[in-house]
């Protein structure tokens, strides 16, 4: 980048050697940066810089660049027009009449000089920062830190009700032995009647009630509840006039069929 700037300065100082103007603007970070680069050619402290001279240099460069149809970013063109305005203000004698409204060329020059100083200051500060003894670059923390280990101690919690309840539950369970009931699978009459109707729909012939239980015969623990609820449902459906039922003698097979309508 520094090389580019040097080339640029050459180009501006010897503007007849136009080939050297093929300096790309990418070397610069915007118009202020370019102005700072140009200012360096004046070889004076930034606070004593000739803003007029700087403006002329900048405008010269922009004009040259335009001749070569170099594409200039808007930032550069805005600065160029501002500098042209500043230049005219600086060159023309002060107009006594409008001193209230418009800043003088001197004042505008000061603004620009201040902005350049400010940017320059930040640039130098950045370099100073980077030149510090930075952690991990020139000073170092412990390479093998010893990490804090978290050790968990269990703290048990229980309350007295829980204690008593646990005690009585287990004592009682043992004392009452097998009396504890498991939740049973119970068929409700409603479930049984739904099942009955669905199966009877298959045929209009008489069927023994045991037929309807076939599906469940293998699971002996369910057989009782299914038989009971099926019988209950049968009576219910007969009462409703949905079913017919017959038995030849006591304890004989019960036969069911759908009521003919």
């Amino acid at each position, binding site marked *: 980048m520094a090389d580019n700037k040097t080339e640029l300065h050459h180009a501006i100082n010897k503007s007849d050697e136009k080939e050297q103007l093929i300096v790309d603007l990418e070397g610069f970070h915007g118009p202020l940066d370019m102005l700072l680069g140009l200012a360096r050619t004046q070889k004076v402290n930034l606070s004593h810089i000739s803003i007029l001279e700087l403006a002329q240099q900048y405008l010269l460069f922009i004009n040259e660049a335009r001749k070569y149809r170099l594409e200039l970013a808007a930032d550069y063109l805005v600065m160029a027009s501002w500098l042209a305005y500043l230049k005219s203000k600086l060159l023309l004698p002060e107009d006594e009449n409008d001193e209230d409204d418009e800043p003088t060329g001197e004042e505008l020059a000061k603004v620009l000089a201040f902005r350049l100083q400010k940017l320059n200051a930040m640039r130098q500060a950045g370099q100073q920062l980077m030149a510090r003894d930075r952690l991990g670059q020139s000073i*170092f*923390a*412990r*390479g*093998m830190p*010893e*990490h*804090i*280990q*978290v*050790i*968990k*101690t*269990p*703290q*048990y*919690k*229980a*309350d*007295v009700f*829980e*204690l*008593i*309840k*646990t*005690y*009585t539950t*287990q*004592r*009682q369970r*043992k*004392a*009452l032995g097998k009396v504890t009931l498991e939740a049973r699978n119970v068929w409700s009459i409603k479930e049984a009647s739904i099942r009955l109707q669905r199966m009877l729909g298959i045929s209009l012939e008489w069927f023994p009630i045991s037929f309807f239980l076939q599906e469940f015969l293998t699971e002996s623990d369910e057989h009782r509840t299914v038989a009971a609820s099926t019988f209950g449902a049968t009576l219910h459906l007969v009462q409703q006039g949905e079913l017919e039922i017959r038995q030849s003698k006591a304890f004989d097979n019960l036969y069911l069929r759908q009521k003919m309508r």
Partner: protein
Amino acid sequence: MDKKQQFPENVTQLPSADRREKLRILEALLFAATEPLDTQTLSHHLAEDQNIDALLEELQNSYSMRGINLVHVAGKWAFRTADDLSYLLKSYAVEQKKLSNAAMETLSIIAYHQPVTRAEIEDIRGVSTSKGTLDVLLETGWVRLRGRRRAPGRPVTYGTSQTFLEHFNLDSIQDLPGLSELKGAGLLEKNLPVDFKIPKPDDTSLLTDDEDPLDEDEATAPLLSTDMQTDS
């Protein structure tokens, strides 16, 4: 600990500025290193004719009484927190835990039936009690080893502790409800067998007639393993 009195001196007594600089270099290299360093690596940074072993030994001495030590491990050197200060690198957190069902059952039996042996607990529960269950209960501090039953095998007897009363907010172990109260509270059914009894809990530290004191070492360091051998 008389060595500690030398603490502030060490570096200032170094013989020469050159030697001191070498020590500084070793110190910085070892501090910033991400792994222990061997003498060969360290000596790359020093003038060749330096006796690096002597320097490292000197550095090790100068740190020997400090919060960090220079240690020699597997032929390499590294800084480590002094052993006696390793507690600084630990942070203790309390983790709230609930007792397992088995532990809770065992605890309640110990509370009501103390002094009680493991075999008696198993008899009441109707299942065997794992070693871990009693371990956990001893760890809570709520259960303690009381003594040994005067019976074949001299099994250890268990009882509850003062901590137990404190944790369960009981004035005395007799505050645990008895049979009629439990029935009244609906915690026991009415139709229990006639011979169903709830013992009157008693955590007195005096040994009962059929208890012998623990052996001396058990009383001070109640290791469960001792118990396990005898009890199971």
